[in-house]
């Protein structure tokens, strides 16, 4: 499998017939039939999405990587748990959200300070390279940190839906399945979360 999953091979999209691009559901079906190249393709499609989602949730880059990897490991070891009654994205986001929440709960009970957070070393952190002006980049970084801090202040059930809706841009229906609450409750939580964020970010006008 290591030969198959080389650094170069994972960059290529899976186009078995060269004309077709498989949907996520088709890929998971192929993976369930032991096509490991399908797994690689799913990893390629979802690793950044999962990283983005989990990072906004836990606000710790290294921890986010661990959680994202754990989610993809669960995809590998529990591939047969997926049934084609829901979207694949719903399933994988549900796993990631549950792992992220568990980690946050453990963090609360542990009360340990992560040394990497105290470190002044620069970590690998890929950002879009659009930085026209030094002042603007400082200001935008400040705004980003304020927004991230405001999201962190939201209660977990508000935070999840806000990230899934306003950052991951999922539909209300999908969010409802991921967090397993009725559609009306999802909309209500998003509404309340937005009002709470407005209070936190009042001075950013």
């Amino acid at each position, binding site marked *: 499998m290591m030969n198959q999953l080389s650094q170069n091979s994972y960059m290529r999209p899976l186009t078995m017939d060269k004309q077709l691009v498989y949907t996520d559901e088709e890929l998971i079906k192929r993976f369930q039939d032991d096509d490991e190249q399908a797994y690689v393709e799913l990893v390629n499609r979802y690793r950044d999405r999962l990283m983005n989602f989990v990072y906004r949730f836990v606000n710790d880059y290294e921890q986010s990587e661990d959680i994202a990897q754990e989610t993809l490991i669960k995809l590998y070891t529990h591939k047969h748990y997926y049934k084609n009654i829901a979207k694949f994205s719903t399933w994988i986001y549900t796993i990631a959200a549950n792992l992220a929440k568990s980690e946050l709960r453990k963090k609360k009970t542990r009360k340990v300070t992560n040394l990497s957070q105290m470190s002044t070393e620069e970590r690998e952190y890929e950002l879009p390279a659009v930085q026209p002006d030094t002042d603007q980049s400082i200001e935008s970084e400040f705004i980003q940190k304020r927004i991230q801090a405001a999201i962190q202040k939201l209660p977990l059930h508000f935070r999840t839906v806000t990230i899934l809706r306003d950052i991951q841009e999922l539909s209300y229906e999908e969010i409802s399945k991921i967090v397993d609450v009725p559609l009306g409750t999802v909309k209500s939580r998003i*509404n309340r979360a*937005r009002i709470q964020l407005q209070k936190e970010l009042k001075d950013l006008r």
Partner: protein
Amino acid sequence: MDRYKFEDSISAYIDNELTLTERQEFEDYIEKNPDAKSLLEDIVNNMGLIKGLPKVKASSSFMSKLLEKVEFEKNKPSVKVINKPSNTFFGFTPLYASIMSVLIVSFITVGYTLWSENMNRPNQLPNFNGNITANPNIDSPNNNINNDQKFVSTTIDSADTTNNKRTKVNLDGKVNFVKKQR
């Protein structure tokens, strides 16, 4: 429209999910209430800022670490259940078997004791030396009841009073009247 209904309707308004009437009500409300309009503008502004947050990407070492973990999972030895030969007595551990045995023996002993007591109770009537001329129909050799005799079942129902003949009991000389004591 009141403040609560307005706040509840903000996201629906932004997502264009209100009916025409509700939308009109909403817009009328924000026209009349500048703070409500300001709240709506702030929320829309924040949504734009959140959407514009840079996408966090995985590091370049993400894939290699993931592959290592996947290989480890693949090669992980399966957990084998080793059935150790156990010292059991009909499937029970020695301690459990002992406790159960003691309990069973105790129950049997107590049960037998209680049952025996129940069976022996008729022999323990208080002593009675008088002669009672009872129902002459009772099938007893001398109509005397004493401690040594065991009750025997009779064919006659002693509760049946239809054939009972009243017999006069002669108490002359047997009853001493006690004088009134002043």
